């Protein structure tokens, strides 16, 4: 990797690291005052445990050798044989991917808010990382799904659809909260998280070019436009529908747009990011209501935003992928002279990820429930998880 590319990948990695605290605040602000620390802890825990696991085994299983169809091997166990070769490019890439591995399970925490035993979460994260995240990541990047020609620039399928559907499985095992949902305990904290997430997402998407080049610049532009367009769409939708434009709507729309553009960021151009953003904003604004229809308790709408948003973006690639713009070798979308093949591959890739992720996440949760138990005690849930599970209270005089 040349120095400029390295500088870009390094700063992008730092931006992605910053996203996990951002996600913690985004979720934590939406949570109850008495549960906010449990939410922050579930997120920070991911960025404590996952990097170590990634260094030891995760990276090796997820990427080495790149050609494997389903899973890597032990060639890079403990980062064996990784040197500063290529001016550090290999190291930077491993760190960059490690940040992704850390934030993906963290995404699920929003769904289980307010009722999961922390000890169960502490075991769930490593299990989910190796059983669900690593294989799906491998399939998509270098593995059978990628080889078939499906596209996922920065992790729409591998990360958002994957974590989003896993969130559904977790809450189905976990069951509903004993207390009614409450309004966000601190909307300003939600907005702090949103600002950090958008800021970090530029590294997440544009950094995925793994170089400082035209594709990175377009991915950057797409991240800018899709986040804005989706936020605007969500706010206008609720303004018309509910009568008021809200901060939480703006925040949710921005995130929905960023999720949707993630798989497409390096493959679409021009007006496409705005189209993707607008569609994702409107669709997710309605999708978050599914839980009341269908009756699953996805506390902070991980399914409605990450699964739905990721799926929308991933499928829209089938229409909007524009290889000629990037002078690159990937299939064109239906609107850019391509045939239905790409759309089909996108459907297959997401279908495969959904099936694997849902089933195995469900199994993991069931096993945990049968062994250590996944649900917090009733008293803890009623009087607050922060005190019961962490012996802390968020705010004092």
């Amino acid at each position: 990797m040349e120095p400029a590319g390295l500088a870009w990948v390094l700063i992008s990695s730092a931006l992605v690291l910053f996203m996990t605290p951002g996600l913690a605040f985004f979720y934590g602000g939406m949570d109850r005052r008495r549960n906010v620390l449990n939410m922050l802890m579930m997120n920070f825990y991911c960025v404590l445990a996952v990097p170590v696991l990634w260094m030891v085994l995760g990276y090796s299983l997820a990427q080495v050798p790149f050609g494997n169809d389903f899973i890597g091997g032990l060639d890079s166990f403990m980062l064996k044989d990784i040197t500063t070769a290529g001016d550090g490019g290999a190291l930077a890439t491993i760190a960059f991917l490690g940040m992704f591995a850390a934030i993906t399970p963290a995404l699920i925490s929003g769904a289980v808010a307010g009722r999961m035993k922390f000890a169960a979460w502490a075991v769930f994260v490593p299990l989910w990382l190796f059983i669900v995240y690593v294989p799906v990541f491998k399939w998509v990047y270098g593995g059978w799904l990628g080889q078939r020609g499906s596209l996922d620039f920065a992790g729409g399928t591998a990360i958002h659809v994957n974590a989003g559907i896993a969130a559904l499985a977790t809450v189905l095992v976990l069951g509903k909260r004993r207390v009614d949902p409450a309004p966000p305990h601190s909307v300003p904290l939600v907005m702090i998280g949103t600002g950090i997430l958008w800021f970090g997402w530029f590294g997440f998407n544009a950094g995925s070019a793994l170089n400082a080049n035209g594709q990175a610049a377009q991915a950057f532009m797409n991240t800018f436009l899709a986040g804005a367009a989706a936020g605007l769409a969500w706010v206008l939708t609720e303004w018309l529908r509910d009568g008021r434009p809200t901060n939480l709507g703006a925040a949710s729309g921005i995130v929905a747009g960023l999720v949707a553009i993630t798989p497409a960021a390096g493959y679409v151009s021009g007006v496409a990011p705005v189209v993707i953003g607008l569609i994702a904003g409107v669709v997710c604004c309605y999708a978050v209501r599914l839980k009341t229809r269908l009756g699953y308790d996805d506390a902070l709408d991980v399914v409605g935003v990450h699964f739905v948003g990721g799926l929308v973006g991933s499928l829209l690639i089938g229409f909007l992928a524009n290889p000629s713009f990037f002078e690159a070798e990937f299939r064109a979308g239906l609107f850019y002279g391509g045939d239905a093949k790409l759309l089909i591959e996108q459907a297959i890739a997401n279908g495969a990820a959904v099936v694997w992720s849902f089933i195995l996440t469900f199994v993991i949760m069931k096993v945990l429930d049968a062994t250590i138990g996944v649900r917090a005690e009733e008293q803890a849930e009623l009087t607050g998880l922060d005190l019961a599970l962490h012996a802390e209270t968020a705010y004092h005089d």
Partner: protein
Amino acid sequence: MKLITAIIKPFKLDEVKDALKAANVTGITVTEVRGFGRQGGHVETYRGAEYKVDLIPKVRLEMVVDDVVADRVVETIVKSAGTGKIGDGKVWITDVSRVVRIRTGEEGRDAI
């Protein structure tokens, strides 16, 4: 001595405070409270889900006053706190059998 307790609208606090000062009330204790009553509450919307909030912010004033002035103080509050709109609040009086000023140990009238 009498204890006068009043529940008023938050944005009326300054007005009421000034009126009470003018009426020589020398001390007031103020508490932020939430109230439920005829006024009903309001609805907040988050991600399209409506949350009915029927406890609305109010301010609670309490002051111990001399029997002779109690009724005048009540009128003062009623006058200064009123907007004529629902939710203006209540004032009530209870008896105080003893009151002491911590600093000096003074009792009764001298304590307030």
